């Protein structure tokens, strides 16, 4: 062997001196750790991963459960990032992210002087107030936003944090539930960091001082960004139930986490317990109704739940509209739906959703004059809505005001050339007037825009009436293949075949 050359053993990469048995155990452990980390990371929102020392610190602190520490680290990261020129497009928000509260307030005030309706600027002021612990001002601002937009998600988060910091847990829970009930979440990074920090602060309190139900609901909110928060949400909720801390809200939080994690029957049990704990817990009724709807259409129980939600919060438009929608669309209880709609319109006469419902309901009830009145009122609020022109056209046609109906459908098409309903409406009018040559292309266009077996059957019948028997026969065959019991096809096909000399 030549002196100076390394030996073969020395060339081998350094290795742990483990037995074969231990190496296998180590490999398995590493694989398991990798699977666990991958699983944990895959369900986390991208905002948790920031490429900087502070960002990495934030992630580590978050993963070990120190949410307030994580929030501070992330805030430091964004401070650096926005100081080097990064922008959100909102100068006030940029200043907040840089940690310059005075600048943020000045910029937002200036924006509000130009446009007092600017919600972004209002939120900047609200968050600045929260940072300065001026909770009263923060709540005043959130109220101002709610007057413009009910349940505005960022304003709801702001209000919830202000209430939580002032120790009013009930209102804090209510505010966060208002954000979540419309399946919307706050969009602002600043609010998210404050939320994370508040959750961490509250979780670090001594056990006797912990707001258990509030924590359950805050973890439930954070579950949207990281599914692993579902577990602490349930744990805190269970503790809250035992402690008698807002048990109905706690059951609701448990139910929602179960539902989101694919355990509908457990979720339903929790919602029913929430209702038992507080029969005015409208949100639990709403969630229970959705579980009943999904398990094969349990209409009777679904009805009980929607009714319960409406009766628990009769002035809340979310539950009123959901109940009316259920009555109209699923149960077909047009009379009850109309009664509730008209009652709501007495309080909010220009509410576009309720005006639309009233128009539709009168239309379904065959009272077209009233329906037209509501649709026309709606057009003064939303004049560019093609769907309303379609509805109007339908009622005008039913009243035999054919020219007006055609104009209405054509106006709808000028607003939305791909409106399937407008083409079907025109075809239907032309068919009724035996103007089949004009009806056929309208049906054909409607079918290009979306398949529907009844529209196809109507088109086939027109081919038959226009003596295009072979085309009609082929067309009816297609209808029967899709819907073997289609009455139009079954009835007319035999006559079509007779005309083709096949019967």
């Amino acid at each position: 062997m030549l002196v100076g050359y390394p030996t073969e053993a020395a060339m081998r990469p350094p290795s742990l001196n483990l037995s074969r048995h231990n190496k296998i155990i180590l490999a398995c452990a590493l694989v398991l750790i990798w699977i666990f980390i991958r699983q944990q990371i895959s369900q986390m929102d991208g905002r948790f991963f920031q490429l900087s020392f502070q960002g990495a610190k934030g992630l580590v602190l978050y993963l070990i459960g120190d949410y307030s520490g994580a929030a501070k680290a992330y805030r430091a990261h964004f401070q650096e990032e926005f100081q080097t020129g990064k922008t959100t497009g909102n100068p006030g928000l940029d200043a907040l992210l840089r940690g310059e509260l005075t600048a943020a307030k000045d910029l937002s005030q200036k924006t509000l002087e130009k446009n007092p309706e600017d919600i972004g600027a209002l939120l900047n002021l609200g968050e600045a107030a929260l940072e300065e612990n001026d909770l009263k001002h923060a709540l005043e601002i959130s109220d101002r936003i709610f007057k413009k937009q009910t349940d505005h998600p960022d304003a709801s988060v702001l209000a919830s944090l202000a209430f939580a910091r002032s120790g009013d847990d009930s209102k804090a829970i209510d505010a966060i539930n208002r954000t979540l009930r419309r399946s919307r979440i706050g969009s602002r990074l600043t609010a998210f960091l404050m939320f994370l920090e508040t959750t961490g602060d509250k979780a670090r309190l001594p056990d006797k001082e912990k707001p258990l139900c509030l924590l359950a609901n805050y973890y439930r909110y954070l579950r949207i960004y990281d599914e692993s928060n579902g577990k602490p949400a349930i744990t805190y909720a269970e503790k809250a139930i035992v402690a008698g801390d807002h048990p109905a809200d706690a059951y609701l939080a448990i139910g929602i986490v179960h539902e989101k994690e694919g355990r509908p029957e457990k979720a339903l049990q929790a919602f029913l317990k929430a209702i038992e704990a507080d029969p005015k817990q409208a949100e639990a009724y709403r969630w229970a109704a959705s579980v009943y709807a999904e398990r094969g259409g349990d209409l009777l129980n679904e009805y009980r739940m929607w009714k319960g939600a409406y009766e628990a919060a009769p002035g809340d438009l979310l539950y009123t509209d959901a109940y009316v929608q259920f009555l109209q669309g699923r149960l077909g209880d047009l009379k009850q739906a109309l009664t509730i709609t008209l009652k709501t319109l007495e309080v909010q006469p220009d509410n576009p959703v309720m005006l639309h419902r009233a128009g539709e309901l009168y239309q379904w009830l065959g009272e077209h004059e009233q329906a037209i009145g509501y649709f026309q009122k709606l057009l003064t609020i939303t004049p560019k809505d093609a769907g309303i022109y379609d509805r109007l056209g339908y009622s005008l046609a039913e009243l035999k005001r054919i020219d007006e109906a055609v104009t209405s459908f054509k106006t709808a098409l000028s607003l939305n050339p791909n409106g399937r309903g407008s083409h079907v409406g025109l075809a239907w009018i032309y068919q009724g007037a035996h103007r089949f040559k004009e009806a056929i292309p309208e049906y054909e266009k409607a079918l290009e825009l979306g398949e529907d077996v009844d529209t196809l059957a109507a088109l086939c019948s027109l081919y038959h009436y226009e003596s295009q028997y072979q085309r009609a026969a082929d067309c009816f065959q297609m209808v029967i293949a899709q819907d073997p019991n289609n009455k139009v096809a079954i009835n007319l096909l035999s006559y079509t075949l007779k005309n083709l000399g096949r019967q």
Partner: protein
Amino acid sequence: MWAQFQYRVPGSFLFLLLPVIGLVLTVLSFILFIKHLLIRIPADDPFRLTFDRIEWWSSLLVRIFVYYSLLLYVNGKLDASKPAYRAYDIVSVANTFDPGLPFSYSWVTLRDRQAPERTERLLLNWGERADLWGAEPVMVTSRQGFLGIPWVAAIERDWDHYAKEILKYAPTASTVWKELIAFDLTHDLWKEGKEASWEYLKLYPNDYKTAIQIGGSFDIVFRYAEAVPFYEYAAARHPTYEVSQVLGTALSWSGNNTRAAQVLEASVQLNPDYWEAYYHLGYVYGGMGRLAEGIAAFEKALERKPNSPEMETELARQRQALAAVQAAKQAAQKRQGQVSNPSP
């Protein structure tokens, strides 16, 4: 397996058989694998002989299962028997069970509503799995079977029972009424269906479209006389040319040609330029023996819709019939003349 779902047989036999088949298939797969490894072992080796014996018996069982499934297929596919309906309540819907076959399956336990002590267990097909839930009232459709093996064609919600429960709480629920009517009219509950239909129309008197649809449900099963009152109802509230045509046709098919002619003649006034009323009148007059009027009606219809072999055929047939009638009349008159003339 598909045949077992599609043409399922009630009883516990299947629930004993399926796990066994699953087990046998697993054993067969295992044996095939082992045999591949033991390829060099002599054929008379006791180990190999045992494996061969197990394989033979397993294969036999699988073959019996396949033939039994084929038998069920023939029994169901060629079955033309009338469906029988029986009301049940769901006791439980079992979770999916995986017997080791390429399919998983789940089943439902049902309690007979007429005899609550009796329970049945049935396999669920794919469509039924998502729709059924515990305590739901269901109607089971069974058939006699081409080979005399009774089988279950469908398990569906018993709207006749369920709708009535809902209507106790929401008596004006139109969708529920319509489901009830549609269910009754497709499950031999004609009287109940008619009663429900009139109840519904009392609640929603402007809904002439549903009245027409109900009429159509009777028409499609050739119960024209029962369709007529619903079309009459629609015509009274929405007197259009189209409604008159369906009413006139149903009246004619139910044997009331006189009233059919009145309705269709009146509809001509609504749109004299359209062919359809003349077309129906052609048949109605023909059926009443008013052949000259029938011919005139078809001629008018053909003027308005020239290319119609069906009408041309019917017109030719009526002209021929009229000619035959006239010839017969002339012959009769001739005979009468011969008889009445006194012989010189």
